[in-house]
């Protein structure tokens, strides 16, 4: 826009001058008034250009401030007080609640469990989803059928999933231990041992979320220009090579999104471990007690909201930290196959839009550079 070019003149005009100079109406006055009018509408359009996008996006942030930021800050306030559900706010205790929680062995057990369950669910989940998406991206008969099929487990309510799976993972009469018994394998203590209980819970999580993740990745895969694949085929690249050298690097932003969201979800896991046995407390020795279950027990079990709020904030900080760490690692991994230096964002965007318009010949040249 030309707004910046007009700037000196517009600002140079004294705002009160024009009305008083109406009477003489000489040529200079006329031109001055015209300039002023142009200048003001241009100021408006400049404001429009600069500020209205913020106005358009503001409903989200206003809503977020009310339903997201306020609870977050209020939780922080609660966490530095003694706080009972009915008695409400008690004395200010500073960091005591945090200190108490950090000294509890239960908290560290919960942290261990949360990370363990998160890792053995998220890593295989994203990997499997990536493979499923890659297969769905090929030419299949009945595409929609397969695509909806992978989403089917996601429709099942988590409570139902947990009920069915915890039945299957029963220690004495569970389906899985029965099958293992027929193969001559000793029954596994799905509810008494730590790692088996994590595996069982991770299975529930993966059952529900893999299809969902696969569909997101599939949507991103479909946006990759087909030219890349055609070009690489001409160069003799196989399916595997295409997957690693084109699909994964192109999926990078989506992968980051998927990994970050599954990190958040994984660290907040609650339904599955809570419904894994009838007591819902994460096992007699806390075998599968996650941080959110610990939080719930402090808040609703012991009605001690100050400590529960402290756990909520610790969890928040942990998620932020892991999220950042994740982001750093994903950026590496997703571009790791590319021997080239990572292009900065602007030039990547330019390259992508160029690729979209350009013809095969051009793309081929890009691929040669890539290779």
């Amino acid at each position: 826009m030309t707004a910046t070019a007009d700037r000196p003149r517009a600002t140079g005009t004294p705002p009160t001058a024009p009305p008083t100079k109406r009477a003489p109406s000489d040529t200079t006055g006329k031109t001055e008034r015209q300039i002023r009018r142009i200048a003001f509408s241009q100021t408006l359009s400049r404001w429009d250009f600069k500020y209205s996008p913020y106005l358009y996006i503001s409903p989200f942030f206003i809503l977020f401030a009310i339903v997201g930021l306020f609870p977050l800050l209020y939780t922080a306030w609660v966490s530095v007080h003694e706080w009972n559900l009915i008695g409400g706010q008690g004395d200010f205790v500073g960091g005591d609640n945090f200190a108490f929680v950090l000294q509890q062995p239960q908290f560290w057990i919960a942290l261990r469990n949360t990370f363990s369950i998160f890792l053995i669910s998220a890593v295989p989940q994203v990997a499997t989803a990536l493979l499923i998406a890659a297969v769905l991206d090929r030419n299949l008969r009945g595409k929609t059928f397969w695509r909806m099929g992978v989403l089917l487990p996601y429709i099942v309510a988590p409570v139902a999933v947990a009920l069915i799976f915890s039945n299957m993972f029963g220690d004495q009469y569970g389906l899985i231990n029965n099958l293992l018994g027929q193969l001559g394998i000793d029954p596994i203590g799905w509810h008494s041992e730590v790692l088996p209980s994590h595996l069982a819970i991770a299975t529930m999580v993966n059952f529900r979320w893999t299809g969902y993740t696969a569909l997101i990745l599939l949507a991103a895969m479909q946006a990759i220009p087909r030219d890349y694949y055609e070009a690489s085929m001409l160069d003799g690249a196989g399916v595997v090579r295409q997957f690693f050298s084109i699909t994964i690097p192109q999926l990078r932003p989506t992968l980051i999104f998927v990994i970050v969201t599954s990190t958040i979800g994984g660290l907040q896991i609650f339904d599955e471990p809570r419904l894994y046995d009838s007591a819902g407390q994460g096992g007699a020795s806390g075998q599968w007690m996650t941080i959110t279950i610990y939080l719930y027990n402090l808040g609703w079990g012991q009605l001690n909201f100050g400590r529960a709020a402290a756990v909520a904030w610790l969890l928040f900080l942990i998620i932020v930290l892991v999220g950042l760490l994740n982001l750093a690692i994903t950026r590496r991994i997703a571009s790791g196959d590319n021997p080239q230096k990572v292009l900065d964002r602007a030039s990547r965007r330019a390259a992508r839009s160029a690729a979209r318009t350009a013809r095969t010949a051009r793309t081929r040249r890009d691929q040669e550079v890539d290779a």
Partner: protein
Amino acid sequence: MTFSRRTTATGALAGAAALALVITGCASGGGEQTGADGDITLTVATFNDFGYTDELLAQYEAENPGVTIVHNRAATSNDARDNFFTKLGAGSGLADIEAVEVDWFAEMMQYSDLLADLSDPEIADRWVDWKTEAATDADGRLVAYGTDIGPEAVCYRADLFAEAGLPTDRAEVAALLEGDWDRYFEVGDQFVEATGGAWFDSAGATYQGMINQVEFAYEEEEGTVIATENPEVKAIYEQVLEASETQSAHLAQWSDDFFAGMANGDFATMLCPGWMLGVIEGNAPEVTDWDIADVFPGGGGNWGGSYLTVPAQGANVEEATKLAAWLTAPEQQLQAFDSAGTFPSQTAAYSEDALLTATNEYFNDAPVGEILVNRSEAIGVAPFKSVKYFPINDALQKSLTRVDVDGTHTIESSWEQFVAEVEALG
């Protein structure tokens, strides 16, 4: 947390219907509408199935013109608890009559000043003593009317008893088990020796029956926690775990395995409050050999039961108190027993034919009414349950599970963890 777990069993069944009721009930608001002509709406909030049928409530409406009753049913007692405490703290939003389960009754009693005083000399003798005593606060105000109780008997598998060469007739079984817990475990040893099977379902369930006979188990009256030093608790803990080594079926109560074991004949006996009869029948419908004996080791015992309270924040406290008194009167309680099997806590009901002649076809036509009346009269001790009773009991149940079910700890190491957990409650 013991009693509330039956709520998951029965609650699941009532879930769908209850949800619909809750939704429609909520829409009509907190029961503070007073019509122009003096008509009032009373809201009653219960959970699971209290046996308050539409017909029963309609009967009250007919007898009291101008009163409309709205009944909201929560699916589980835990849902009711969350709702109760949130709104009690907020000072508004509770129903005119709120049902409270013994599980969280002690927690509620801390805030008894937020509830209406329901004392009424006319009905003061209505309930069994210990039920009324528990609902009377330090200032002598009666803040809750008792609904049902859970007198405990012993349920047993007649076929497994026969296999072990033990008597199968319920009167003979009662005579055989008459005595204290030592006797119960002694017979258990005989049974295990003869059959190699398990005598009882789990250490946790058996412990629950034993600890409910101790008046001051975890706390002293002024609130001092004695759970970890009380030799009585430690002795019961050790006794049950030593017996469970050979006699337990190692099934965590309310787990899927536990229900399967009930049908598969994994254990010969289980402690049986009145409401447990329905649980057994529901989970082992094919088994014809379950029976119930009029006996309980170490005297009587109570497991579970609920109350009705009238929150002082309501707009129609007086009318609500009237309705609560009516609902907990012996006649209405007998109707509730008939429809939902909730065993009355009203002494007058115990001489009623409707209760005394009640039999149960599933338990080989056992005279359950008579047996449970006897069992309720045998209850001698009402355990003192204060604020920390349930978290402590919960921690102890977990320590039993670690040894009995998980097998991950020894009796001693699990006790140490229990001590640490009780300290962390501070």
